[in-house]
């Protein structure tokens, strides 16, 4: 019976919000730049998703730790400095251990700083909540983001090259849809994905 009670705890609801009800990409449409630019290959998408998850969790935790000492006038700049410190850490980590992925992602790793999800969670959640909840919230938002990235990248890589992570899936005669690995493919796949999910969850916009 324990898991039934779990459904009504704050922990569980924060997790569900980030993954499903408030999914940063599909519902709130935040952090799209990196979501589209790096999803032409699955491994890039996973690296980017995990990088963002780490940055959201770490920066939210720090913001939440010092939330009572930040004067509200300079809070944005403070968040920026905290976030960029962690992004630099991610960048150096990738360069040291996964140089191939680092060179494929290029400038987009640095652009995690301006990813609205990170700033959004710091401002909307971490500035008001204790550390233990912000860690769950950061994890949930990061995972919701990673999930969408991986789904989009699977579709794009499959259609563009006929294989996923180097393993051929489609028959030999598959004509590669090269446009899928370029910008328009990303726009179309994400647009259709948003359409599908909104029809399914009955979340409509009025205009």
């Amino acid at each position, binding site marked *: 019976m324990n898991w039934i009670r779990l459904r009504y705890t704050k922990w569980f609801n924060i997790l569900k919000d980030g993954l499903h009800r408030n999914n940063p990409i599909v519902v709130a*449409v*935040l*952090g*799209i*730049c990196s979501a*589209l*630019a790096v999803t032409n290959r699955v491994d890039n998408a996973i690296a980017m998703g995990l990088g963002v998850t780490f940055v959201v969790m770490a920066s939210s935790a720090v913001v939440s730790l010092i939330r009572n000492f930040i004067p509200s006038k300079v809070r*944005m*700049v403070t968040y*920026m*400095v905290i976030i*960029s*410190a962690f*992004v*630099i850490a991610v*960048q*150096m980590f990738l360069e040291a251990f996964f140089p191939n992925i680092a060179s494929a992602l*290029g*400038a987009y790793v*640095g*652009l995690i*700083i*301006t*990813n*609205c999800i990170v*700033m959004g969670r710091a401002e909307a959640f971490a500035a008001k909540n204790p550390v233990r909840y912000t860690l769950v919230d950061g994890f949930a938002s990061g995972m919701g983001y990673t999930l969408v990235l991986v789904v989009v990248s699977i579709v794009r890589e499959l259609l563009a090259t006929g294989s996923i992570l180097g393993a051929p899936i489609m028959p030999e005669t598959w004509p590669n849809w090269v*446009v899928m690995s*370029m*910008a*328009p*493919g*990303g*726009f*179309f796949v*994400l*647009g*259709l994905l*948003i*359409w*599908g999910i*909104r*029809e399914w969850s009955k979340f*409509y*916009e*009025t*205009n």
Partner: protein
Amino acid sequence: MNNLLELILASILNHNIALVYILGMCPLIAISTNVKNAKGMGLAVILVVTLTAIINWPIYQLLLATGTEKLALLVFIITIAAVVQLLEIFMEKFVPSMYNAFGIFLPLITVNCVVLAVSLFFVNREYTFGETAAFGFGSSVGWALAIILLAGIREKMAKISDLPKGLRGKGIVFIILGILALAFIGFTGLASI
């Protein structure tokens, strides 16, 4: 000189920063519901991106000379925030008409990734000062072009189209952007970057 003109042309059309490199999407989607706002945002971006690119280039040379280029990200972000803040104060004081026209868009630009991306790209591609200024100007004009095109289409579409419910709002924006991006990819080979 020819080289710089080619760079400007390339960064407006076939290397368009919004539609080919997919940057600055959040404001592109949020502020493109009517053409008037899109114009204001586009102008503000042209101003800020060109200025920050010009300012960040000498700062990066300074970081290179002292061997601290790992901190470039942090320094760039602070410069951008400072430039935006200064520009806002300056405009409010000396050109209030301009401030009223697009002052509200300025704070939003700090989180526009086009600004940071232009600074990071000149580092990656090892541009000279002239090339950096040309690239910054061209990219921001390209971004402004994209947002104004998108706003024009959305404005017309809101009046006449009958879309499926789930596609309304953000969904259809991505489909429009996809078609626009296809059109811009048609410029491939026009100029090299």
